[in-house]
């Protein structure tokens, strides 16, 4: 029996209520540690923290528009082998979806992880967040929380959400064990807590919460947000297709790329321990460069820029969850996410696949059927 309960917020202290909720979760029999974003005491920055002592939740802030990394990688690091206890991971929906992809790619196990998905209000790009948060991250978070919920997802004054968030149609973690709901709840007064799996039930039963019903406004608010986001997404797809529909345009799109490969490092689903592009395969002999240059008269250095990006698209587009960390990591502001999402959308549709939807759905390139895709075979 799924549990639907609510956390009553006192004196508008939403973060305080969340802090107490995570303390309760940590105090249950099963949970050994909680992975949750917190404001670091030494600097106004939000980072994932792994907490084992209930007194150490002082800077808890999973609502801040800060998204320094996709924490699916951190969870995968914690869950690749038995850890000796269960960890409750407080994540954004795109982090949960990326983790589900990693589990299917054998980069993590779900046995010792309890996924807690907080309704996502969106995030700013890194550079914007530092400016936005200023000296008081907790206060700026509350301002952001109220603005987003009141304006039905519209950005805050002077700042735009990251493009990946503006195009994201997954504001709610449908596949978490426990959901913490914000949309459709009374702003600053109550939060929804819902279990969606048996392990979620098991934990919530041990926490003292007041039962409630999901308010009707919740689904309406979510639907409105998704339709607004889908509109932006489709417009982004059209714009990106137009900007990349030939090699010449692709070369212009990536003209400022310096082959730093930060986008691959930041990508939560690019999971190879060693990417072929940083191995000796691409450490060409000097004479090779000269031969290429001789053949064409001119080559751009470093070489293989488009080769790298198109190969990464071929390797990862079926697993792309659209979190936007590739764009966040780009030193030269190339809209990498826009291209990845555009290509990933068609690639996933071709295989009737949706990255991060469920553990059961098999990654397209890990399986095959004997009788399929006859249309790609033959020369007629």
């Amino acid at each position, binding site marked *: 029996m799924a549990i639907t309960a609510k956390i009553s917020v006192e004196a508008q202290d939403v973060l305080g209520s969340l802090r107490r909720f995570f303390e309760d979760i940590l105090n249950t029999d099963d949970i050994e540690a909680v992975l949750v974003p917190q404001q670091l005491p030494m600097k106004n920055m939000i980072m994932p923290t792994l907490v084992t002592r209930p007194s150490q939740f002082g800077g808890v802030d999973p609502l801040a528009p800060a998204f320094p990394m996709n924490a699916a990688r951190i969870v995968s690091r914690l869950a690749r082998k038995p850890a000796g206890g269960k960890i409750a991971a407080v994540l954004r929906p795109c982090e949960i979806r990326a983790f589900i992809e990693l589990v299917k790619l054998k980069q993590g196990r779900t046995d010792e992880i309890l996924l807690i998905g907080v309704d996502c209000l969106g995030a700013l790009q890194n550079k914007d967040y530092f400016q936005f948060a200023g000296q008081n991250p907790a206060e700026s978070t509350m301002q952001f929380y109220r603005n987003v919920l009141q304006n039905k997802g519209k950005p805050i004054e002077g700042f735009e959400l990251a493009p990946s968030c503006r195009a994201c149609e997954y504001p709610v973690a449908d596949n978490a064990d426990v959901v913490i709901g914000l949309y459709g709840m009374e702003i600053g007064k109550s939060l929804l807590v819902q279990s969606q799996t048996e392990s979620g039930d098991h934990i919530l039963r041990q926490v003292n919460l007041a039962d409630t019903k999901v308010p009707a406004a919740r689904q309406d608010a979510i639907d409105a947000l998704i339709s607004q986001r889908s509109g932006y997404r489709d417009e982004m797809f059209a714009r990106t*297709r137009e900007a*990349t*529909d*030939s*090699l*010449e*345009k*692709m*070369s212009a799109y*990536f*003209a400022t*790329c310096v082959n730093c490969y930060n986008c691959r490092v930041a990508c939560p689903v690019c999971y190879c321990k060693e990417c*072929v592009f940083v191995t000796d395969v691409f450490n060409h002999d000097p004479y090779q460069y000269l031969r290429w240059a001789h053949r*064409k008269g*001119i080559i*751009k250095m470093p070489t293989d*820029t*488009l*080769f790298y990006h*198109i*190969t990464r*698209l*071929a*390797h990862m*587009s*079926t697993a792309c969850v659209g979190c936007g960390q590739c764009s966040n990591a780009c030193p030269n502001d190339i809209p990498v996410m826009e291209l990845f999402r*555009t*290509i990933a959308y*068609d*690639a996933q549709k*071709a*295989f009737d696949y949706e990255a991060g939807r469920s553990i059961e759905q098999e990654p*397209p*390139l890990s399986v*095959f*059927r*004997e009788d*399929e*895709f006859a249309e*790609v*075979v*033959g*020369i007629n």
Partner: protein
Amino acid sequence: MSEFEPLIVAFFCNWCTYTAADLAGTSRLSYPHNIKSIRVMCTGMVDPKYIIKAFLEGADGVLVSGCHPGDCHYINGNFKARRRIKLLKEILPQFGFEPQRLRLTWIGASDGVLFAEIMRDLVLQIKALGPSQAKLAMVI
């Protein structure tokens, strides 16, 4: 102006299509010189990046050819290849490569005559498409 001669990079599996190519040769069948064959152990080992690299370096067409379904020497390599080709046929056309430039065929070891026919057909088709865009512009 001389007629456009396309360059087609072809990945042939060792057990079926490469053997068919061999048979075409020993049977003294001729097929166009535009096909540059690369012998691989199985179509299942053709990583998408081999195909992408061929196109970016100016290949006008890429052919991957292996055993008929059920005949793969490694049981299912050709099924995996088919999924990868399906994926690339979704991705590459977005960057202006006509889908017909990338082809997958099954040619069995005893199909020497068919092999030569398919190669002739393919060259005609790629000729009709004209030179690949990678030859015409600077690719970074």
